[in-house]
């Protein structure tokens, strides 16, 4: 078995979800190669332990799906499994690759039972299905929260250029508004502090920053907070946003809808602050505090400041 993992674009580093995808590949077994789009991440990818080879594809710096899928299809004959992290990039590209190979993609794999049998959540995490594929090439994305990432260093893989594949020429990159990251990335953070509709406004939402800074935490949000414009879309945690599994997740003024829980219930420790003692979030919280977020957040920031 030989497995190819498509790496997220993450500048000169390798993203944590990519390292989780490499971990999933190692559980499947066999030789693991990593494909990097654009020159940037190649050296970091070569340092991942247990990776035999890194392929670097020049061009397509923005990971457009159409040329990226064409490239993966060209590489596919050499591999039994094609993997990618279940990031926006992986989810954009891998189903396209699968269809071109006439196979059914398996999205957000949460467990490896064998070379052709995998576990994944369905119905917003309410059910866990074990599925076996009959396809020759297995194409899948990996739910990063379910696999401990491999270490960032320890290996020394050979770096080779990927063969050129033709760009179908039907799409082009126009621009991006990518927020500059001042905090840890949401899906990689050890601690996540999230705000819900209770935050009330974009200005109020900012009071979470004080607590986040004290804890070195990333900031997340419920869909209600994102829809209302209190927080940007990339902060949404949940079934249809990002899935996180930090050591500590603190939910401020989030009711605990099933769609939100789907994105955070694998967190090691969950803290909920809500003024409604009946809020469903308390049913999954290790520590619950009934109270007003506007009183609790400043108090917590002050308390964390004391040693």
């Amino acid at each position, binding site marked *: 078995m030989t497995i190819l993992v498509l790496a997220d674009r993450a500048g000169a580093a390798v993203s944590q979800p990519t390292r989780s995808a490499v971990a999933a590949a190692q559980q499947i077994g066999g030789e693991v190669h990593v494909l990097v789009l654009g020159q940037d991440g190649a050296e970091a990818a070569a340092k991942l332990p247990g990776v035999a080879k890194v392929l670097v594809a020049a061009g397509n710096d923005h990971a457009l799906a159409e040329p990226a899928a064409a490239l993966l299809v060209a590489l596919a004959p050499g591999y039994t499994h094609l993997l990618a992290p279940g990031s926006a990039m992986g989810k954009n590209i891998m189903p396209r690759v699968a269809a071109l190979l006439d196979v059914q993609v398996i999205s957000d794999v949460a467990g490896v039972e064998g070379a052709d049998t995998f576990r994944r959540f*369905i119905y917003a995490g309410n059910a866990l299905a074990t599925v076996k594929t*009959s396809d020759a090439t297995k194409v899948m994305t990996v739910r990063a929260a379910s696999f401990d990432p491999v270490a960032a260093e320890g290996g020394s893989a050979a770096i080779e250029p990927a063969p050129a594949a033709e760009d179908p020429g039907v799409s082009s990159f126009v621009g991006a508004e990518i927020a500059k990251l001042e905090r840890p990335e949401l899906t990689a953070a050890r601690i996540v502090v999230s705000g819900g509709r209770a935050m009330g406004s974009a200005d109020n939402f900012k009071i979470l920053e004080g607590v986040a800074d004290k804890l070195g935490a990333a900031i997340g949000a419920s869909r209600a907070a994102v829809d209302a414009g209190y927080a940007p879309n990339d902060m949404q945690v949940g079934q249809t946003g990002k899935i996180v599994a930090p050591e500590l997740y603190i939910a401020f003024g989030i009711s605990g809808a099933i769609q939100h829980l789907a994105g955070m219930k694998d967190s090691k420790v969950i803290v909920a602050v809500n003024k409604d003692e009946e809020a469903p979030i308390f049913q999954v919280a290790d520590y619950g505090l009934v109270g007003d977020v506007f009183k609790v957040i400043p108090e917590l920031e002050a*308390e964390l400041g004391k040693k």
Partner: protein
Amino acid sequence: MKILVPVKRVVDYNVKVRVKADGTGVETANVKMSMNPFDEIAVEEAVRLKEKGTATEIVAVSIGPAAAQEQIRTALAMGADRGILVEHDGIVEPLAVAKMLKALVAKESPQLVLMGKQAIDDDMNATGQMLAALLGWPQGTFASKVEVADGIKVTREVDGGLETVALKLPAIVTADLRLNEPRYASLPNIMKARKKPIETVKPADLGVDPAPRLTVLKVEEPPKRQAGVKVGSVQELVEKLRTEAKVI
């Protein structure tokens, strides 16, 4: 420009689904079914494009049991012009759905297929990308803004923020949550929708074998979290996080 909008019949998002005792799937008998919420957003976008004069006709398609007509009717009440039901009982995977949609695209020649980014039952987030691949069309997935002008410009929700791509037409667009807020159909429009035509075809009419590639070996209840304790104050919370949970 003609727009095709695939709409899926799914368990309503408010239903707390239960895993069947025999581990073969989830309980779907006698539960409320609705149009996949992302597909409502796709229908809304198509209707807005028609109201602006960009779109000329909207065809809503569903692949599923006879009852999926209800979801097509909902699309018609929102403003779609006619419907096609590909009647099929049992599981259809995104690859098979994409193949059926491809056959319908060949028949209907739309310039745009507007669909949901993800169905909230199986959560695959795959069908649009797979259809785009089979047709050799470009894809604008996770769209939060769509502008049609000499091709189509799609703003996409990506991990770090937003990204805009320009696509040649014909193209596939999959809707994310922030694309729009779908309207509620008015009573007169619901009445009017009853008279709009729905054609019924079978997968075999489209030359597609719907046999799944994935075998579901079992479906289980995921491990449940236990509710913990309530703390009385911020001080107690911080104390517990430091000394008991040891996470800060």
